[in-house]
């Protein structure tokens, strides 16, 4: 028993020591803005999981209840309860089809984080592989990959996404594919740069001299040493992915009608609600969207500062 506590204590002390020893983590933890960002993200993850389980999932009324029209069984277009002195009814008001906006906005967090994660995950995986391969194999492979990336980078990002949507057609999954292709070059560039630096180190020569095969060198030695810039890029890109996914839905090329995605709710609120004075249709989805993106930007910004030794000096 006592040994167990001891070992727990040692590991936690180890952890603290390791955190202290890592200038990246300690300066990140000292950055209050970054911690706030992390807090926002965790809160949104909680909301998303809650919405997935207790609104649209096995423990709630089900997805159908927030997607299908409730006309006839509930009042439509009513303002948030608290504006009328009834804080407990229709917290964010109801929409034109009498759907309660509150659970829809909460479920929007699930959609945003789910599709954001898939987009960022896929573009990270693709970009990192291409970047490392380009750095490792020089000349033809490098040039082919990086010149292709240059072409993709020659478009403003949302424009390229739109052009790809014109090819693939609209829908949330197709928007995810389009945005994955849009973000991939950024990862490829960052990783190629980082990998080129790592490849100059002597331990890489040593590993190769010891007879390690290419995939092993890349996966075990080059990749782990490029993780820091990859993490920063992913975090900053997460905010961008969530905004761009919402933008594609807003323009009518993303989520299908009825889906409780923030972008779609915003577009409906702006087109049909705002000019008639119905502000709550667009206000709440937009607020959640902005706060989530702010969370990722705060964290990503803090990470970038923590990684940059010059900025670290500035903090001291």
């Amino acid at each position: 028993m006592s040994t167990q506590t001891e070992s727990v204590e040692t590991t936690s002390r180890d952890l603290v020591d390791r955190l202290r020893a890592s200038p990246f983590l300690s300066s990140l933890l000292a950055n209050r803005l970054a911690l706030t960002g992390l807090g926002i993200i965790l809160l949104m993850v909680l909301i998303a999981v809650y919405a997935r389980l207790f609104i649209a999932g096995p423990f709630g009324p089900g997805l159908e209840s927030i997607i299908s029209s409730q006309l006839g069984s509930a009042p439509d277009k009513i303002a948030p309860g608290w504006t009328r002195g009834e804080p407990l009814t229709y917290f964010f008001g109801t929409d034109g089809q009498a759907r309660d906006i509150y659970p829809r906005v909460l479920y929007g967090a699930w959609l945003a984080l789910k599709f954001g994660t898939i987009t960022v995950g896929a573009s990270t995986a693709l970009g990192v592989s291409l970047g490392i391969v380009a750095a490792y194999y020089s000349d033809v492979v490098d040039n082919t990959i990086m010149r292709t990336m240059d072409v993709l980078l020659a478009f403003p990002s949302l424009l390229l996404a739109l052009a790809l949507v014109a090819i693939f057609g609209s829908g949330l999954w197709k928007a995810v594919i389009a945005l994955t292709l849009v973000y991939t070059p950024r990862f490829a560039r960052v990783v190629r740069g980082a990998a080129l630096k790592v490849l100059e180190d002597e331990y890489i020569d040593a590993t190769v001299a010891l007879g390690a095969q290419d995939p092993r060198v890349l996966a075990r030695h080059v990749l782990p040493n490029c993780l820091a810039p990859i993490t920063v890029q992913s975090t900053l890109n997460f905010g961008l992915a969530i905004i761009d996914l919402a933008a594609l839905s807003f323009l009518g090329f993303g989520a299908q009608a009825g889906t409780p995605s923030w972008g779609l709710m915003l577009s409906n609120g702006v087109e049909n609600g705002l000019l008639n004075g119905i502000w709550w249709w667009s206000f709440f989805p937009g607020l959640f969207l902005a706060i989530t993106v702010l969370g990722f930007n705060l964290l990503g910004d803090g990470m970038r500062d923590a990684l940059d030794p010059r900025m670290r000096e500035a903090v001291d």
Partner: protein
Amino acid sequence: MRSYAQMVSKRFILKRLLLLIPVLLGVGTLVFAVLHLSPGDPARVILGQRASAQEVADLREGLGLNDPIWIQYLRFLWEAAQFEFGESYKIFQGQTVKSVLVDKLPVTIELALYGQIIGITLGIPLGILSAVKQDSVVDHVTRIGALTGISVPIFWSGPLVILLFATYLDWLPTSGRIGATIFLDDTWMPFTFLPEGFSQQLPWFGGPVVISKATEWPLTGMVTIDTLLLQNWEAFISAGQHLLLPSAVIGIYSMALISRMMRSSMLEVVRQDYMRTARAKGQGAKITIMKHGLRNAFIPVVTVIGIQFGTLLGGAVLTETVFGIGGIGVMLVNAIEVSDYNLVQGTVLTFALLFTLVNLGVDITYSYLDPRIQQ
């Protein structure tokens, strides 16, 4: 010494121009793919669902869609190089894509320009202030403000400011480019001269007429500039009022990025040895910052400003949709919706070309500011 620097820059610019060729070729290929990988049949799109199979087949032949793909590809590249994309199928039926682009592009550029001006005039001073007073309240407010600025989507903040300033306060117009009683005529084509004493009477509006004076300059298609050229003050003020909200909304986004870059760049420069040397020689703090700090700190900011301009052009899709401004951004969205492929191709290529040219301009400016980059 100077001639050597000039020689290097010429070589640098030439090299950058040569590098542009493969990129533009790639861009052209991708735009070509937009048409040929899209699920719809262009001939069917043009003729509509009711047309007979024979009519569709005839039109396909006429459009050259039955030719081998590589012939179509080469033909496309050849025409695209001359900026010819054929006629718009649907939205501007009968007009060439080129003429539509010439007509609409200035609208988008004007908006991006004003947004950028607002972003620069606010972003640079705020960034400097933030750096000079590092970790003060001003610094924190600016940094949080900047991060919030880039986190708030334009398609949310835009409608909210319209609601506040246009609907509730009624200070500014809700959408469009110019007042409804001020007539914008079809003859108002950019790059055209108006004949002496040209006048346009309006049968249905009682309002003032814009095109009433002769101009010595060809019109630009940008309302604020054209109304000035025509010396129509009322129209000029109206145009300015219409541009204020949209350019402020995108300007704040751009301000956020510029102030961030200005701050970090300034912080870095302040720590350089030459700054300490200047102070050690007895120069005052303010003069050191203005004389030695700013010039060096500006270098990375120029890059951000250039990249940001490209992003603003791309963001035009959203801004124009929200503010009801008829530029090429909103046109692209409509063209994709109705599968007006020629228009989609022309617009996407124009955006990519502009973006690439702005980036080229940034690189060249950068090389002048920091000649080390050329080596």
